[in-house]
């Protein structure tokens, strides 16, 4: 694991958040986990980081369906900030098994992968 081991979870499902956090903590010894319940909060944090020159999280687990700002909107806003997506691995993690969502994710070059819930520790390990 590299020095930058921050992982960011953006999901409005609190149970999923806590379960994933548990999983991550078990898998990795040293890890910073950032958690956001919707896109707008996450976006604010990203923006602040860019403004202050802080490093962005290495991995982002992004849900699609969220109130206020959903995953897609978050992504498009992020793209407008022109960040270096090669340094930020974005994975969609959704309970949606709708093909439209999967294809939409596939079409976006900045999305590394599409993971359907429930997320397994092996998959998490791979991502990290």
């Amino acid at each position, binding site marked *: 694991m590299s020095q930058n081991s921050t992982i960011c979870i953006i999901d409005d499902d609190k149970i*999923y958040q806590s379960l994933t956090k548990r999983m991550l903590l078990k898998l990795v010894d040293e890890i910073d986990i950032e958690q956001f319940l919707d896109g707008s909060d996450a976006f604010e944090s990203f923006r602040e980081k860019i403004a202050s020159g802080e490093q962005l999280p290495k991995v982002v687990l992004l849900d699609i369906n969220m109130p206020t700002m959903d995953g897609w909107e978050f992504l498009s806003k992020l793209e407008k900030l022109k960040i270096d997506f090669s340094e930020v691995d974005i994975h969609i993690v*959704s309970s949606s098994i709708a093909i439209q969502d999967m294809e939409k994710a596939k079409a976006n070059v900045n999305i590394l992968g599409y993971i359907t819930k429930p997320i397994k520790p092996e998959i998490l390990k791979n991502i990290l």
Partner: protein
Amino acid sequence: MSIKNKSKYNLTNLIVLKPKVFSVICFFILSLIGFFIIKQQHSISEEKERLEMQKMLNVVQRNIEQILQNSHTITLSLAQTIDRTGTPQNFEAVAKRLLDNNKNIDIVQLVPNGVIKYIYPLKGNEEAIGLNLFNTKHTKDEALKTIERNDIYFAGPLELVQGGKAIIGRTPIYRDRKFWGFSAIIISLSNLLKEAGLSDFNISGYFIQLSKINPVTNKEEFFLDNPYNFDSSIKETIKLPQGNWSIHLVKEKSNTALISLYPTIILWVIFCISSTILLYFLLKKPSELQQVIVNQDERISKNEKELQVIFDNAALGIAVIDIRSRVFIKVNQQLSKMLECPISSLLKANVHEFILEKDTSNFDSLLNDLREGNLNKFSATKKLISKNKKIIWANITVSPMWHKGENPSSYITVIEDITEKKKSSELLQKSESRFKSLFEDSPIPLSEEDMSGVQEELKKLDLSKLPPTKIYRYFKEHPKDLYRCINKTNIIDINKEMMLLKDTNSKNEYINNYKLFTLNRAPNYLIKKLIAIIKNQTSFVGETKIQTFNGEEKDVLVKWYVVPGYENNYKRVFVSTENITERKNAVRELKKSHNTLIERNKRLLDFSYIISHNLRSHTSNIQTIIDNLEYVDNEEERTELLGLLKQVSDSLDETIHNLNEITSIRANVNISREPLDIYSYTQKTINILSSKIDKSNAIIHNKIEPDTIILYNPAYLESILLNLLSNAIKYAHSERQPEISIYTRTFKGNLQLFVKDNGIGIDLEKHGEKIFGMYKTFTKRDDSRGIGLFITKNQVEGMGGKIEVKSSINEGSIFKVFFNEPK
């Protein structure tokens, strides 16, 4: 139609057509006459002069002859002095006496044997004594000539020995038939001239010259100082044989007579010139007239030629016919061809032989009118029959060949073979009637319209250069122009099917009320039609609605095309109006069911999405928890996970409950309806929410008219009101007192419910689609569940209505419910 010979005009032409030439010729003739007259006059005056001069000379001649005669007498008298011996006696005394008596004689001599011996007076003449005439050169010839003449002969004038010029008259004297000598007298020239009356000859314009042929030289010698070169001058001469003298009376200037003629010549010249000019002008006028006549003549003859050519080669039969006998006087080739009869036999024939109908009374009466001058000309269509019994339809035009007031003689007939025309017009009539029946009995509603008025009206607006979109906008903005143009359409005819379509029994009813119905048509269709005319299109297709006379609306497909030949003026346009109401309705139905299907499909998708998303999120959590539970080793962790599992099961239960609610709404196709007082229901809802209202300090205005009744499901109405009102309270703006108004409106007979707040509002641009979706929340409020509006929408739509929203962020929202009560 003969062509007149021109040659007989030649002489006249010379005089009249060439006044200049003729005038010049006249001038020369007059000049010639003048020349002869003047010449005559001149010679008469010359003759007169000559006579005058003759007279003058005669006097001189007489004088001289007198002198010479005297001289002779004196010589003879002197000779008397000679006696028998031949010696003169008393010579001196006789001579003195003679000289005294004849003062004109200067000297007398007696010259015996040619030697001058006796001279009186001797004084001054002594030198001559002893001169032998025969020995002296210049006297010898004359002396001998005297003897020859045997009469007095005058010698000289010559220079006298004693000096001076004089003539010497000598008479030979014979004694006893023997020459004795001469008796001579000498007259000085000056004396002679004086005596002859010549010395003081002083008539102006004339002079005298005396000449003599020199016997020695035979040349004429002149003796007077006057000019002697006068051969060409007017002169009169007398000859004196006694001395071979000539006396000339010469007119000094031979042209004096001419000078006297000058006035005459000048007057004549003036006369010639003026009469020539006068003649020229006199001739000019008729010449011009003549020229006009000649030109006219040429033109007439040209016209005649042309007429002849036209007559001969015309494609129409032309004949001149005698009005009484009705016999052909003149016919052309075409007529002969038409009637299949050679010209020669036609010319003997009577018109009636070629007329098919025997009853010609009508034609005859027309001819009679023509004859009486009631008609200028007339035309008639008649059936003719050719010699080979072929029937010919002919158009006959008859014009008189006489002028007004003249006696009717013959008439000219132009005969046009219209057999072919007649045939084709019959064909045309047939096809026209065939077309008519096609039109009339066509299974498609048809009409024939005159759109020329529309086109003219459109031209006035001058829109042709605009693109169709701009024309469209123009008419949208100027509906008066649109209807004025459309109203210029005139219906020419409609067929039965059209009447059926319009539910009318009368064509006139349709035609008269056409405009009324057009106005009801959609302007878009009318504008499209006008654009087609502006752009000069010859065909048009468009759909519109029409209203029948029963007030029924029908969908029609209108197609028209301009009848060929009328493309520029739109005077005839065929319009088919196909009834497509059923088709249209079917399409509408189809569209409706299509939309329903789409809607259903969409709901199904929504539902599957809800299932996949909302249910799967719970199940995936359960899976994760169970997975974790398997590897848990301490009790604390297990309790924690079981707590989470409890949470998941609770929210799953809620989700399933919500889903059940929605599916129950959807499944309920026939939900019961009952009349409900919407005001009371609203009031009831306000009461239910009173604690929340109090908490938020909101003001609620129930503006619904009491006793507003709608037919609706009570549970749904309660739910709808509760959801909308609680949302309005929930999403109040933190900076102001919430104010909510509830009111109804009636639109097209349907009641609409409005719930208006001054809350935070929703960004519809961003969330428009999702606002009524399940689990869509747009705020971070904990109590936003994203299910209320989803249920409301399902309830409203389940009752056949719809719900809409208008909103602006930070200002508020208005929810609008269309109830759609059944009629």
